[in-house]
C-alpha cells in the first residue's frame, strides 16, 4: 500500500508543480516554448507508438499533424464549429488518413516504408500549397480562432494568453499519456510488442499483423492530428510548412534521443530538446550562428552509436549503478 501511496503522492506533487509553472515564470516567450514542447511531446509519443512499439518507421508523421491543424482550422473558420470539437475532428480526419496510409504500409518495411511515408507527406504538402481555395496556399490560413471560453458557473476561463494554453496543453499531454499507457500496458500493447519482436512468432499465436498495424497507424495518426489542432488554435496560423519533412525529423530525433519504445523517452526527449534548442538559440547572440540543428543531427548520430536506449537508458543504468554502488 505504501508504494501506491508514494506513487499517488508523486503524481500529486508533479501535478501541483505543473500547475504552478505559470505563476513562477511569467515570461510569455518562455510559456510559448513550453506550449510547443507540449505539442511536440504529443507528436513524439504518437510517433513512438508506431516506431517504438511496432517497429514501423513512419517518416510522414508531420502530414497527420498538418491534416489535424488544417481540419480544425477550416472547420472553425468556415463552419463555426467549436474549436474544442475541432481538436477531436482534426484527430479523426488524421486517423482516416492514417488508416489509408496503413494499407500500403502493410506490405512494406524498412526503406520502402520510409520512402512511401515521406512521399505521402510530400504529396499532401503540395496539395496544401496548391489547393488555394481551401488552404490559401503557401500564405497559409491566418486568424484561426482562439479556443472558446469555458464557463463553469460564475467562473469563466478565457483562452487568450500563453499561460491559458499551457493548461490546455498540459491536460492534452496527460490525456495522451493516459491513453498510450493504457494501450501499451494492455493485451493490445503486449500484442504489438510481440509483433515487433518477431512477426512470424506472433502469427504462430494467432496474431494477424495486418489488422494490428492498421489499428496502430490509425491511433498514431489520431494523436498527431489532435496535436495539430492544438497548434492551429494556439499559433492561429496554419501553413503547408507543418507537413514538411523537417518536422518529422524533429519528432524522430526527440524520440530517439529520449529512448525509442519507452513511454518516458518521448516526453524526456521532446522536453529536453526543446529546452536545449532554446538555450542554443540564446547562445546565437554570442556565437552569431545558429547551431541548434547541427546539435540535433550530431546528437541523433551519437545516440544511435553510443546510447541505443536513449536518455531513458542512461538514466536507468546510472540509477542501477548508484543503487548497486551502495
Amino acid at each position, binding site marked *: 500500500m505504501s508504494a501506491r501511496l508514494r506513487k499517488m503522492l508523486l503524481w500529486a506533487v508533479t501535478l501541483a508543480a505543473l500547475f504552478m509553472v505559470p505563476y513562477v515564470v511569467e515570461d510569455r516567450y518562455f510559456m510559448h516554448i513550453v506550449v510547443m514542447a507540449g505539442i511536440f511531446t504529443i507528436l513524439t509519443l504518437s510517433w513512438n507508438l508506431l516506431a517504438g512499439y511496432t517497429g514501423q518507421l513512419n517518416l510522414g508523421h508531420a502530414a497527420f499533424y498538418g491534416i489535424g491543424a488544417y481540419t480544425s482550422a477550416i472547420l472553425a473558420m468556415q463552419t463555426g464549429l467549436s474549436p474544442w470539437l475541432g481538436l477531436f475532428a482534426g484527430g479523426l480526419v488524421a486517423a482516416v488518413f492514417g488508416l489509408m496510409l496503413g494499407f*500500403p504500409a502493410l506490405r512494406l518495411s*524498412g526503406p520502402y516504408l520510409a520512402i512511401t511515408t515521406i512521399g505521402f507527406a*510530400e504529396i499532401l504538402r503540395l496539395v496544401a500549397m496548391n489547393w488555394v481555395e481551401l488552404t490559401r496556399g503557401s500564405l497559409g490560413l491566418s486568424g484561426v480562432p482562439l479556443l472558446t471560453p469555458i464557463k463553469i458557473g460564475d467562473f469563466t476561463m478565457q483562452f487568450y494568453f500563453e499561460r491559458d494554453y499551457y493548461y490546455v496543453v498540459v491536460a492534452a499531454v496527460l490525456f495522451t499519456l493516459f491513453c498510450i499507457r493504457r494501450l501499451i500496458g494492455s493485451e493490445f500493447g503486449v500484442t504489438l510488442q510481440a509483433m515487433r519482436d518477431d512477426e512470424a512468432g506472433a502469427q504462430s499465436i494467432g496474431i494477424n499483423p495486418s489488422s494490428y498495424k492498421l489499428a496502430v497507424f490509425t491511433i498514431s495518426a489520431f494523436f498527431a492530428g489532435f496535436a495539430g489542432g492544438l497548434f492551429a488554435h494556439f499559433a492561429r496560423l496554419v501553413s503547408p510548412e507543418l507537413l514538411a519533412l523537417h518536422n518529422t525529423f524533429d519528432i524522430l530525433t526527440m524520440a530517439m534521443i529520449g529512448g525509442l519504445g519507452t513511454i518516458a523517452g518521448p516526453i524526456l526527449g521532446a522536453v529536453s530538446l526543446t529546452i536545449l534548442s532554446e538555450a542554443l538559440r540564446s547562445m546565437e547572440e554570442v556565437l552569431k*550562428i545558429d547551431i541548434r540543428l547541427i546539435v540535433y*543531427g*550530431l546528437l541523433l548520430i551519437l545516440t544511435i552509436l553510443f546510447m541505443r536506449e536513449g536518455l531513458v537508458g542512461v538514466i536507468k543504468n546510472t540509477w542501477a549503478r548508484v543503487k548497486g554502488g551502495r
Partner: protein
Amino acid sequence: MVPVMDSLFLQQVLNGLITGSVYSLIAIGLTMIFGVMKISNFAQGDYSMVGAYTAVFVMAWVGGWLGWIGSVVAAAAVVGLLGVVTERLVFRPLMTRWTDIDMIMVSIGLFILLDNLAQLFFGATPRMIGDPFGGVTVNLGVASTSLLRLFCFFFAGITIFCLELFLNRSRMGVAIRATSQNRFAAQLMGIDINQVYRITFGVGALLAGVGGVLYGTLFAIYPTMGALPTLKAFAVTILGGMGNVRGAIWGGLILGVAEALGGNYIAMEYKQAIGFFIIILVLLVKPSGLFGRKEGA
C-alpha cells in the same frame, strides 16, 4: 497544332533525359551502397550538395570550362573522401548490430548535420554555377537545349560508362558485385569485406558528388538542396529495384522524362510529387521494382 505539340513533346523528353541522367548518377551511388551494405542512406543528396558547393568554389577560383571540369574532379575527390570518412565513423560501427531503423535513423542524423553545417558555412543565399559556354544553345532539329545542359548529359553518361567498366572489368569492381550477391561466399573467396564496404561507400558518395555538380549546373545551389536529390534518388532506386545498378540508370531516365512530361501536360505544381506517385504505384504493384528480381528466399 500537331507539329507544335510534337516539338514541345520532344523538347520535354530531351529536358527529361538530361535531368534524368543526373538522377541516375546520384541514384546509382545510393543503390550500390544499398546493394552491398543494405544501408538506406538518406544523406546521399547531401553528398551531392557538398559536391555542388565544391564546384562553386573551384569555379570561383579557376572559371571557364576548364574550371567546370576541374570542379567535377575536385567534387569527386572531396565527396569520395567524405563518403569514406562517414562510412568508417558513422555506418561501420553499426554494421554488426544494425537494424533497418537504426541505419535509416543514423543517415537521417547525418542528413540533418550536413544540411545545417552547410547553412553555417555557406550561408542561405542560393548560388549558381556559371555557364562556361556563355549560354550557347544547340539546335538538334526537333528540340534545342543549351550546350551546357548537353554537356551535363554526356558527362553523366561518361561517368556511368566508367563505373560500368569499373564494376565489370576490375577485380575490385567484380568483388563489389559479388559481395552484394552473397556476402558469405565473398568472404570465402578471400575478399576483405571491410575494404569492399569502404570502396563501395567511397564510390557511391563520389557518384553523388559528381551528380551534385551536374545537378547544381542545372538547378540552383543552396544548403538544404540535398533533400530533393535524396528523395529523387530513392524514387529512382525503388523504380529500378534496390541494389540494381542498371535499374537505377533506366529508373533515373524514366523519372526525369515523367517529371518533364507530367510537369508540362498535367500540373506544374505537382511536378515534384510525380516521383512519389510513381514509386507508390510501383511498390503496390511490384515491390521489387520494375527491373528487380524477386528477393531471394
